[in-house]
């Protein structure tokens, strides 16, 4: 029996694609740009085990079709190409990149340019107050403080950029913690299966229904004010350990569909140990949805961090995050609105861009997960 495979553009909605396999085009025909010709693959095999999207990138097909040696494009390259077509996602990516770079380099650049550090409190008592953006102490226009100064006369731009370091760090590290827990948990549950899987997933169901934010508040409030650094580590652990549940479910689902495939069987037949199969053979193949969900977890975690900082149990001074800077600004909203508006807008812009980037990545990496 011959197997014909119709490869549709994976970014289109696959559910509505019920057209029958197209006949094989004549060998000499060159495929139209942008369309993928149907492929005759392994004509002697009766069954194909590997799902198409996972196994074959578009470039591979064309190479096989023409019989020529063309550099094959991997799934990742295809995904990257699809991502670049999504304007909003590209803008999101650029904005996030700019904000990360500015947060990392900005404080140094400002010190080079104006000699002001984020912690610098002017010695002159006349400067110990909050100046509006682009204003010098005598009220005239000046480039020295583009975002104004805070109540102690510190440069707000430098503080916002340095706050970005903390906010992004909390977002990224907590997401990594949740990745570590979620991926291991989901992979183990999915691979072992049976009763173990039942119990592990039931535990996830129970944890899902817990009002975890209350527990985080109690945890942080109780163990508060050891040291700012200690509080930060506590924050990573607390936020990371409550946001792994969905990740565990996603990974488990992926593993369930991967574990009966031939490459796993081959690994097992050659005597590879179970942990090695899980983490070296299965998990890398489930990476797409994991990356998508991790990208969407970062803004959620950053929002939680800001929320906790607003309550006074998140980032502790002298460290400052966007959340704690905005909180300082709230107290002076009527008089010095820029103290709230600049950190607030920077944060909103970052979360906005991260969300769009996450949505774009989802469309590019995992078209089936896409909600239109």
């Amino acid at each position, binding site marked *: 029996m011959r197997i014909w495979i119709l490869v549709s553009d994976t970014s289109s909605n696959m559910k*509505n694609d019920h057209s029958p396999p197209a006949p094989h085009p004549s060998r000499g025909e060159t495929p139209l740009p942008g369309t993928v010709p149907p492929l005759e693959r392994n004509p002697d095999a009766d069954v194909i085990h590997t799902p198409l999207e996972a196994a074959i990138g578009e470039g591979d097909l064309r190479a096989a079709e023409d019989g020529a040696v063309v550099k094959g494009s991997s799934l990742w390259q295809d995904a990257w190409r699809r991502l670049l077509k999504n304007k909003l996602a590209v803008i999101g990516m650029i904005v996030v990149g700019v904000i990360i770079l500015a947060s990392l380099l900005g404080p140094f650049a400002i010190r080079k340019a104006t000699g002001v550090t984020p912690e610098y409190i002017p010695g002159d008592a006349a400067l110990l107050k909050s100046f509006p953006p682009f204003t010098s102490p005598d009220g005239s226009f000046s480039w020295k403080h583009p975002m104004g100064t805070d109540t102690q006369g510190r440069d707000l731009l430098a503080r916002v950029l340095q706050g970005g370091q903390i906010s992004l760090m909390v977002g990224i590290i907590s997401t990594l913690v949740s990745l570590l827990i979620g991926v291991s948990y989901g992979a183990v549950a999915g691979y072992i299966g049976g009763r173990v899987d039942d119990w592990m997933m039931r535990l996830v*169901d*129970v944890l899902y*229904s*817990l*009002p*975890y*934010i*209350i*527990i985080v*508040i*109690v*945890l942080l*409030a*109780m*163990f508060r004010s050891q040291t700012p650094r200690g509080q930060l580590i506590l924050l990573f652990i607390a936020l990371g350990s409550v946001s792994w549940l969905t990740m565990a479910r996603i990974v488990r689902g992926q593993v369930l569909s991967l574990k009966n495939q031939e490459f796993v069987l081959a690994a097992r037949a050659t005597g590879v140990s179970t942990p090695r199969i899980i983490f070296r053979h299965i998990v890398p193949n489930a990476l797409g949805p994991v990356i998508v969900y991790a990208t969407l977890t970062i*803004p959620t975690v950053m*929002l939680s961090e*800001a*929320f906790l900082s*607003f*309550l*006074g*149990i998140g980032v502790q001074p002298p460290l400052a995050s966007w*959340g704690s800077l*905005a*909180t300082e*600004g*709230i107290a002076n*909203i*009527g008089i010095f*609105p820029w103290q*709230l*508006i600049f950190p*607030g807008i920077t*944060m*909103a*812009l970052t*979360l*906005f861009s991260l*969300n*769009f980037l996450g949505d774009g990545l989802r469309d590019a990496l995992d078209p089936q997960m896409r*909600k*239109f």
Partner: protein
Amino acid sequence: MLRFIIRRLLVTIPTILVVITITWGLIRLAPGNFYTGEKRLPPAIEKNIREKYGLDKPWHEQYGRTMWGMVRHLDFGTSLKYEGQSVNAIIARSLPVSATVGILAYLLALLVGITFGSIAALKQNSRWDYGSMALAMLGISVPNFVLGPILVLLFSLSLYWLPPSRWNGFPSKNLILPVLTLSAIYMAYIARLTRAGMLEVLRSDYIRTARSKGLSERHVVVRHALRGGLMPVVSFTGPALAFLLTGTVVVERLFALPGLGNYFIQASLNRDEPLILGIVAFIAIMLLTMNLLVDIAYAYLDPRIRY
């Protein structure tokens, strides 16, 4: 159905006890206690207080006493900070405030979210669609403690239309800003969920059937599509309640409302153990019961689901 409810109850009740136990454990594991403050109490007074509240007993006895009081009499004891006030009285007093703001915000979010979500789905890829989805993304990305003060700055401190804070009973102008602040993020989520759900339903066969029967577009949308398209919104109600909780904490602090969330944060910062435990237990019970009700409603609305 009855079996399903009973089975869920069998999971729900231990879960509530676990939440309370974790909270109790956290309070106890943390160094210090309610009486370790800046001002040191004379040892004799501290000893008397510890005896009065049973803090001198071994931990398992204290745990047993706390849990027994809750399970047996639904009694959470007396607040340490607000002397002489029972936890039950504080909850009873602050719940109406939180509930009013929360319910109004949720209703507003449903109204606006479903409307804009449906419009976006019906006019997919139009200006309406992109506009409302961009707004929704904005609603998800702007933290509510940034949005609230900006609204205050605009409507109270610049235009002098609305009062900036304080609780003033149910129908009052004071409620407008808190409710708006709280509902922004739900509006956004509900609009996105409605749009996704509606798009999926609008492509299904039964909608084509309804259209080909010659039903009016209005009838198709309102009677046929909305029912199926709103399923994701129904299942969002559970998580929404959890969100509502964190949201009310922020909004109550921003607008100085004497609600449950405000008391909870104060109690946590004061290490007021009975009050923390009481509010945590109350919230856990409410949340899990609501989750159960949502699941039942889900089964009722979608006949394909069988338990």
